[in-house]
């Protein structure tokens, strides 16, 4: 077979984004009631750059007492200020946050890359602009809620406890805070313990924007801190994005209480390539589907289904495209795949690579070289797998693709739906009727047609089945933070 050589002798020279302009403190306290407060435990933990394993800052660990303090601050702000403020005024504050994020976009992008390991290209072009876009979008809704829910008297819930994951640290904070504030709620938010920095930087912006004290409280810590938020009796609503396992624990914990919840959990999305698809663009979609953000994406297209008649050519094109992916220093502007978020996550991914091989699947990785320090995983795909394999059934949350084949529409629909998850799916075909047939039969919250991993604040996002419930984004995202008559 004539092989295309993509390991070009024309190599990229390093093109590093500067870190001179960022401002990071050595130690971060808890942001409660508009002030930086020391944790009552006196304990701090490290947040680490996964690309170098170097410590970036000490982060305060909040315990039950601190959570209680934060919830009280949020309740006070809700009762005394935020719920009484005219909605148009609320909107102004949210607009101000959005603008300040834009003004400091470069700093946020660099810190996001340092703290989480994602390529600067993605932090700069996707995470930070989308975060600002969410604030802009929901700022516009603040004084138009009666138009969103006419004759249904929309009212805020009160204090929202929000827990966000480490894969899109700032963006997930924006998804949570922006609709909560627009609808008149106050917030206690906990970022993930491995990626707290951009949330804490956002606290600085919230101060700068002059948001009334206590409207947004940002507290840091691990699972126990999150549990304390979930279990606090004065929290009216829990919004959680993370693993299905923790989602189930939260469901159990709030059973029998009056707390509302939205859970955005795991996924194992089917990305389906039909023989009549635009194959070169579909290959690009496969790459975006699974290697975007090192595969740390709940809606990642981790199960690839290729129609048998085009299997050989798709695999060849896919492998050639994979060869041109640049893996390495996340601060390099040419990097396509950065560092795995944490040692723990790398161990999980490696465990699944072993399981895949032990199950008899054929593993393919590109022959890129990896940096010596830090946590890395080459872009990987498994062939010769089926629905019976664990690497097909379970969420790996890494740059690992499981490839299966199919023959008919009915077969691929059955296989695509044959999973406990139902967050997203992708369909690639040039035939519109086929696309609409698929979208009405696939059980997934988001279905992309001839594209993948596209996000917009105006579009609702959320899952079916064990991928969770409730929607974030769009008009639907408002409802999750409101009492409305007749529902």
């Amino acid at each position: 077979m004539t092989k295309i050589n993509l390991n070009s002798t024309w190599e990229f020279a390093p093109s590093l984004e500067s870190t001179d302009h960022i401002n990071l403190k050595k130690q971060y306290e808890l942001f409660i009631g508009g002030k930086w407060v020391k944790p009552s435990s006196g304990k701090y933990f490290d947040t680490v750059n996964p690309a170098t394993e170097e410590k970036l800052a000490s982060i305060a660990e909040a315990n039950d007492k601190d959570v209680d303090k934060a919830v009280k601050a949020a309740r006070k702000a809700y009762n005394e200020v935020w719920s009484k403020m005219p909605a148009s005024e609320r909107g102004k504050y949210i607009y101000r946050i959005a603008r300040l994020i834009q003004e400091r976009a470069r700093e946020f992008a660099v810190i996001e890359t340092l703290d989480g390991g994602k390529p600067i290209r993605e932090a700069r072009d996707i995470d930070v602009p989308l975060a600002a876009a969410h604030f802009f979008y929901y700022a516009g809704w603040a004084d138009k809620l009666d138009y969103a829910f006419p004759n249904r008297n929309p009212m805020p819930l009160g204090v929202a406890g929000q827990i966000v994951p480490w894969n899109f640290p700032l963006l997930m904070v924006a998804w949570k805070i922006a609709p909560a504030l627009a609808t008149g709620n106050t917030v206690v938010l906990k970022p993930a313990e491995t990626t707290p920095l951009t949330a804490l930087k956002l606290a600085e912006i919230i101060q700068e924007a002059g948001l009334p004290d206590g409207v947004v409280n940002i507290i840091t810590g691990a699972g126990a801190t999150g549990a304390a938020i979930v279990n606090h009796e004065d929290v009216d609503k829990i919004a959680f994005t993370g693993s299905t396992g923790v989602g189930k624990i939260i469901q159990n914990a709030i059973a029998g209480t009056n707390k509302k919840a939205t859970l955005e959990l795991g996924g194992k999305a089917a990305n389906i390539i039909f023989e009549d698809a635009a194959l070169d663009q579909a290959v690009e979609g496969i790459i975006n589907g699974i290697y975007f953000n090192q595969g740390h994406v709940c809606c990642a297209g981790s199960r690839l289904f290729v129609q048998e008649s085009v299997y050989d050519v798709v695999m060849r094109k896919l492998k050639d495209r994979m060869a041109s992916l640049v893996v390495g220093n996340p601060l390099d502007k040419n990097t396509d795949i950065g560092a795995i978020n944490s040692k723990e996550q790398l161990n999980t991914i490696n465990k699944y690579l072993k399981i895949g091989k032990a199950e008899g699947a054929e593993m393919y990785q590109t022959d890129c070289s990896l940096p010596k320090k830090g946590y890395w995983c080459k872009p990987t795909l498994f062939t010769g797998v089926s629905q019976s394999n664990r690497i097909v059934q379970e969420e790996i949350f890494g740059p690992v693709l499981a490839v299966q084949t199919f023959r008919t529409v009915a077969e691929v629909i059955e296989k695509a739906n044959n999973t406990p998850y139902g967050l997203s799916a992708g369909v690639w075909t040039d035939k519109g009727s086929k696309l609409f047939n698929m979208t009405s039969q696939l059980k997934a919250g988001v279905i992309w047609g001839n594209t993948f991993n596209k996000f917009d604040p105006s579009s609702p996002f959320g899952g079916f089945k064990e991928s969770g419930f409730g929607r974030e984004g769009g008009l639907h995202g408002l409802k999750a933070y409101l009492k409305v008559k007749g529902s």
Partner: protein
Amino acid sequence: MILDYNATPVIDQVGVLDRIDRITSRSLKKDAKMHGLKLALSMIDLTTLEGADTTKKVVQLCNKAMHLHDAMPGLPTVAAVCVYPNFVETAKKTLKGTKIKVASVATAFPAGQSSREVKLLDTKLAVDGGADEVDMVISRGKFHEGEYNFVFDEIAAIKEACGKARLKVILETGELGTFDKVRRASDIAIYAGADFIKTSTGKISPAATLPVTSVMLEAIKDYYYKTGIQVGMKPAGGISNAKLALQYLLLVKETLGDAWLTNEWFRFGASSLANDVLMQIVKQTTGIYQSKDYFSKD
């Protein structure tokens, strides 16, 4: 191998544009940039295709091709000069003793609205004059009428008339309308025997674009997958600065790889690109931008 023109691959426009966004966000620095600039310079077909062209103008262009910027030693020359058939002999004579090729447009360039006989004679004129390369245009009217066999046969006939000269087939993508049609025209040209496929005459806007080039490169790749035979690519028209040229080269690098990163398989059809590339090379070397008047305009 007979091609079923109605089964040529479909192209998704949004996906093509997304791919180009990834290419244009690449960042070339230092050695990598210098390497790319020199590569770009060596791939230029220095072009003059005006109604007002004269023998003296063509001689001046050839001089420019031979002496790009003698103030800086060690630079490559351009790949070729590209002229009308009646100037081929002049160009050939002027460039004698150099490695610079002479390319000639032919086949009733740029519209291609003429008979087969005239197009063959036009080609013969260029080849007899000593052209190393012939840049023909396809019959876009026939293509739009769905007369794909006509278009195919015409290319095959011109290819035969070219003899040893390499044939570049201009699709005039700005007149084709969709990426699907660009892909179909690319396949017809490749299977009919094109040595190169080329985007544009430079007389129609839009001329070359990155997305259209991406579609054509994928057609070349698919043909290579099937046959192991290389076909060259020439975007032409509208590529007037070094930054854009480098983005084209990155697109080639990530689509077809090393084997195409030479002037045997990739060319730029351009008239003003060379001076901007030269200016950037000097800037990379000295750290200072020079006045445009330090670079000769012919």
